[in-house]
């Protein structure tokens, strides 16, 4: 018997979940956890109902509302917007009819599906995890294979707990060295997307590796994996290690005691084998990363905050020139303009990318002793009710509210323009979310993606700001 071929983290989780393989290489892949929300599931449940099919595994299926729920108190008294109310009511009817575990809106564990999965211990290392949402890649930070699916596939998983899939290619992004002062996981992932492009990971699963990744806490790892889809990859993953296991130990729905030790034994075998071959390798030096900000309408259009708006006319081909001209016009920019001179109308801290307690702490740290600039609407939206509760225990809500931030209930909020939290046409928003597409945060709205600390810095100065220049010593004088 020859020794087993070295395998990647992705290969190992994939192999452990193949039920059977067709002659053409299509696998029937077993799915351990299926997370369901109100927007992409109604048609799937309707399909089951029409065909008279039950949900195959009720203990592997969890539902929550997050996308279109208001983040103010009106959510508790009845959602005003009739279509949103219908979608939420439809989910509630579906989970009742089919017996699916549901975390209701008035439960403090409610929150953004990609925040609560890891937080509650629903998402664990070694699992296959899917959800009808492209940011399912977030859960890959646990050392899981997690990816977004469409509604037809939601129905397929509900009915069979499997998916028909061809294996993805393996890609490794290694970030060596240590992050400089003022830089975060968000800056790492924006730098990666800037380097490989918004289709750079298409057809691949990205494994993030290297010293700078290993040094991240679980929140930072989730931020990085979250935006894998913005690089075109369906999934991003990070090998489970002591940081992961420590995180899992305190999760309410994770295994405990002997079961946990047995699980950790298996999880410890998952990291990529020495000598495993990746179809593509990319390397970055963390020490060269600066606080990043997006300037255009694609997540690949990012620059260090010290940069200037590019000149479309310098681009190589006419198609790219036309694309850049459209972006510059849509974003209301002038070529050569300093990014730091761009005034903002709104600041949003939250989303499945940056709605965890660590993100709120980072924002509050910059804000403490300062005030939101005049004319700026700034809000912090915790990713879950538990994050909100933790922040309030730490007094972060007081710091933020005293500075002039709105402090809201958990949900997707201003990330995606399908609930009442939106920006208006032509308004410019410094946002910790994940997409800067045209109209993403509201029709005609202009989004600049950045880290929570950078968003907080923009809130207090009123323009995009290099957070490294807001030294803590100066805080008292700025008040």
């Amino acid at each position, binding site marked *: 018997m020859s020794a087993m071929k070295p395998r990647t983290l992705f290969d190992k989780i994939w192999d452990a979940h193949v039920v059977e393989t067709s002659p053409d290489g299509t696998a029937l892949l077993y799915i351990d956890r299926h997370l369901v929300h109100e927007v992409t599931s109604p048609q799937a449940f309707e399909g089951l109902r029409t065909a008279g099919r039950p949900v195959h595994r009720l203990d592997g299926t969890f539902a929550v509302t997050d996308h279109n729920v208001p983040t103010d108190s009106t959510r508790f008294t009845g959602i005003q917007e009739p279509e949103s109310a219908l979608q939420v009511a439809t989910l509630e009817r579906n989970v009742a009819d089919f017996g699916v575990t549901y975390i209701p809106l008035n439960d403090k564990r409610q929150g953004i599906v990609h925040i609560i999965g890891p937080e509650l211990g629903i998402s664990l290392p070694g699992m296959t995890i899917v959800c009808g949402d492209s940011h399912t890649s977030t859960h890959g930070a646990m050392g899981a294979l997690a990816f977004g*699916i469409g509604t037809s596939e939601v129905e397929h998983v509900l009915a069979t707990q499997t998916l028909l899939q061809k294996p993805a290619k393996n890609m490794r992004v290694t970030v060596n060295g240590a992050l400089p002062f003022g830089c975060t996981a968000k800056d790492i992932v924006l730098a990666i997307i800037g380097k490989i492009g918004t289709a750079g990971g298409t057809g691949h699963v990205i494994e993030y590796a290297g010293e700078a990744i290993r040094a991240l806490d679980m929140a930072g790892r989730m931020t990085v994996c979250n935006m894998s889809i913005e690089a075109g990859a369906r999934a991003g993953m990070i090998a489970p290690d002591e940081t992961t296991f420590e995180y899992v130990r305190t999760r309410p729905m994770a295994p405990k005691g002997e079961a946990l030790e047995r699980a950790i034994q298996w999880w410890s075998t998952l990291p990529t084998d020495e000598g495993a071959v990746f179809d593509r390798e990319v390397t970055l030096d963390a020490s060269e990363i600066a606080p990043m900000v997006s300037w255009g309408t694609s997540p690949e259009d990012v620059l260090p905050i010290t940069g200037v708006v590019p000149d479309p006319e310098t681009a190589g081909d006419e198609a790219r020139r036309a694309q850049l001209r459209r972006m510059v016009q849509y974003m209301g920019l002038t070529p050569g303009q300093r990014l730091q001179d761009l005034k903002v109308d709104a600041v949003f801290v939250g989303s499945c990318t940056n709605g965890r307690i660590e993100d709120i702490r980072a924002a509050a740290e910059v804000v403490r002793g300062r005030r939101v600039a005049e004319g700026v609407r700034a809000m912090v939206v915790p990713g879950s009710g538990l994050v909100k509760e933790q922040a309030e225990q730490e007094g972060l809500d007081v710091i933020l509210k005293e500075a002039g931030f709105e402090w809201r209930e958990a949900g997707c909020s201003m990330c995606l323009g399908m609930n009442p939290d939106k920006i208006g046409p032509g308004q410019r928003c410094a946002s910790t979310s994940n997409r800067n597409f045209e109209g993403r945060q509201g029709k005609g709205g202009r989004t600049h993606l950045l880290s929570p600390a950078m968003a907080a810095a923009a809130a207090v100065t009123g323009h995009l700001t290099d957070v490294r220049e807001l030294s803590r010593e100066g805080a008292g004088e700025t008040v």
Partner: protein
Amino acid sequence: MQPFTTLTGIAAPLPMANVDTDKIIPARFLKTIERKGLGRAAFADMRFNDDGSEKPEFVLNQEPYRNAEVLIAHENFGCGSSREHAPWALLDFGIRCVIAPDFADIFFNNSFKNGILPIKLPREICDTLMEDAKMGANARISVDLTRQVVIRPNGEEIPFEVDPLRKHRLLNGLDDIGETMQRAAVIEGFEAKQRAAQPWLYG
């Protein structure tokens, strides 16, 4: 699902890269519990002004492209969100085939599940087809899935690749779920083994 076999129709040129799913259908239109009726929302922000009037410069507001059945675009079509509302909106508008140099994975996958054929062709060929499409009603493009060819208005045939299983399902309008459910015994066998090895996965 409506089968896809052959198609001859108007092709609309959309010479843009990274056409994201928020462009194909903005999020405010996702608040539906049905699959149908989303054609009005297709490319809504590119098609309509705030007062609901049409933007005459947008290709799908022009004759003959209002009746387009094929869309020709640049790289990374369908990037962004996993919303299946994107293919639903295209389908309801009348688009049955999208031709581009490459597609985002989830959109590509979702299209096949809804009877839309996404075809990957090299950029130069897409550019040629884009020029054909600009000739409007005088230039109908045909797509033959059985023979795997796109036929230009001048009769030239351009072969394309498609996954055999997906082709089979598209040609016959088959739904995956019924087929997978026939494998129930194998799935249950997998579950029994997994449950023994990793009991913490089961509640």
